[in-house]
Structures are given as C-alpha cells and as structure tokens.
C-alpha cells in the first residue's frame, strides 16, 4: 500500500489523514490528526468546518486505493450537502477517526457520507460531493 503522502496532492501542512484503518470498494475508515499549529486552530481547538476537509481527504485516499494507477489524482471539494455537528470544536493533537462511504458516483462527481469521531465520541457527520480528475 502506498503512503498517504503519495495518495493526496496536499502538502504536509494541509494533510490531516494519517493512516488507513480499513477500506473496501465503497468505503474507507482512516485516522486523522489536526496539529495544534494548524491555522484552523488559532485559539486552541480547531474549527468544526475541518471535519469536511478530513472526510474529503479520506475520500481522496479511497480513490487512490481503488484506482488502477499509481499517479496521484487531483480532486476538489465542490459541495457540502449537509453537515451536522455534535461538537462546536475539533480536538487538536488527538487521534480522530473518519469513516466515509460512497453513496453515489457519476464521474467525475461523487457523493460521500461521512462520520468523524474522537475516542468513539461523535463529532460530526454529513454528506459532501467531490470532483475527481479522471485523466
């Protein structure tokens, strides 16, 4: 399995997904971490908006794992159908777990539902749409 760094186009500072826990053809679970130095955490804990970015990165990693190429594919978050928060902030320097499941795909667009938690405590769930380069 390739390293996460090879699966996402993000630089170190913007890459929050750390490891793949499990995946199959339509879903993925990853660990993630938001460092205390993140610009999303200017006053301690991080903006809950980051839940969506973490989920989008998990979807990107899934795309790399199931793709028949080693090349990193670019992707963009194009929409958030819904985000429901169970926490006003995300903890920093703490292992997070993100699970994402593909619920619709019409290339180059895909819709994922996701959940983010920390130590089994739900933080957020929602649905997002991503555009993935097909070439």
């Amino acid at each position, binding site marked *: 399995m390739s390293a996460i760094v090879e699966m996402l186009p993000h630089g170190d500072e913007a890459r929050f997904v750390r490891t793949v826990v499990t995946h199959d053809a339509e879903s993925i679970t990853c660990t993630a971490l938001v460092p205390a130095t993140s610009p999303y955490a200017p006053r301690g804990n991080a903006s809950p908006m980051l839940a969506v970015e973490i989920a989008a990165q998990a979807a990107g990693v899934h795309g790399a794992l199931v793709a028949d190429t080693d090349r990193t594919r670019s992707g963009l978050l194009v929409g*958030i159908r819904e985000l429901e928060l169970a926490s006003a902030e995300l903890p920093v320097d703490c292992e997070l777990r993100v699970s994402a499941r593909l619920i619709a795909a019409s290339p180059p667009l895909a819709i994922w539902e996701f959940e983010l938690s920390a130590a089994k405590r739900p933080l957020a769930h929602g649905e997002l749409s991503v555009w993935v380069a097909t070439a």
Partner: protein
Amino acid sequence: MRYECLSFASTATGWEARVRVPAGSEFFRGHFPDAPILPGVALLAIAHELIATRVPQLPLLAGLRGIRFRNPVRPESVVLFELTRSVPHELTLKASCEAARAAEGTLLFADELPA
C-alpha cells in the same frame, strides 16, 4: 497572518465583510504546493469566525446545508462575505471574489448541540 479583515458592517438583514487573503496566509500552505488555492473549508471557517468574534450572543454553529463551491479563491484575493439572516438560527452565506461567486449556502445554528 491567516487573513485580513478590511471591513465588517451590519446590514438591514445581516452582515457584510471584506477580507483579504494574503499570499503568505497559513491557509495556503500545502493546498496545493504547486497551485495554491484557498481550501473551501477555510472560506467557511473565516465566515464563521467573522461573525462569531463580532456578534454577541451568536448561537452555536450546528451545521451546514447546501454549500456549493463555485470558483477558487487564489492568493491575494479580496473576498466579499454576505451573511443574511433568512430565518431564525440560519444564515445564508454568499462569498464572492471579484464579482465571481466563490461559495454559497447556509450556516445553521442552535442553542445546544446534540449530545
């Protein structure tokens, strides 16, 4: 500096702010190394910060609905945020960059979050 708030004002229906995102903003670091664009969630985080730090007694952010990212925001852009109170506990967001819509959708608020 992550961003510079150039102006913030109340309107008849909500709030309006102009924000410059400098090329050196931490939000651009790593996103992406060869073609920096502002992460969509950074745009949302800025919008929320703008009101959360300036509007007293704002309820808790509870979620988002129907957010669409239309055009990328590049370094040194000035973004106009228009936040309109549509119904109680909801703010409609429009973020524009040089007349092009960057993002739009609804921010949801609540007095308590689900346990």
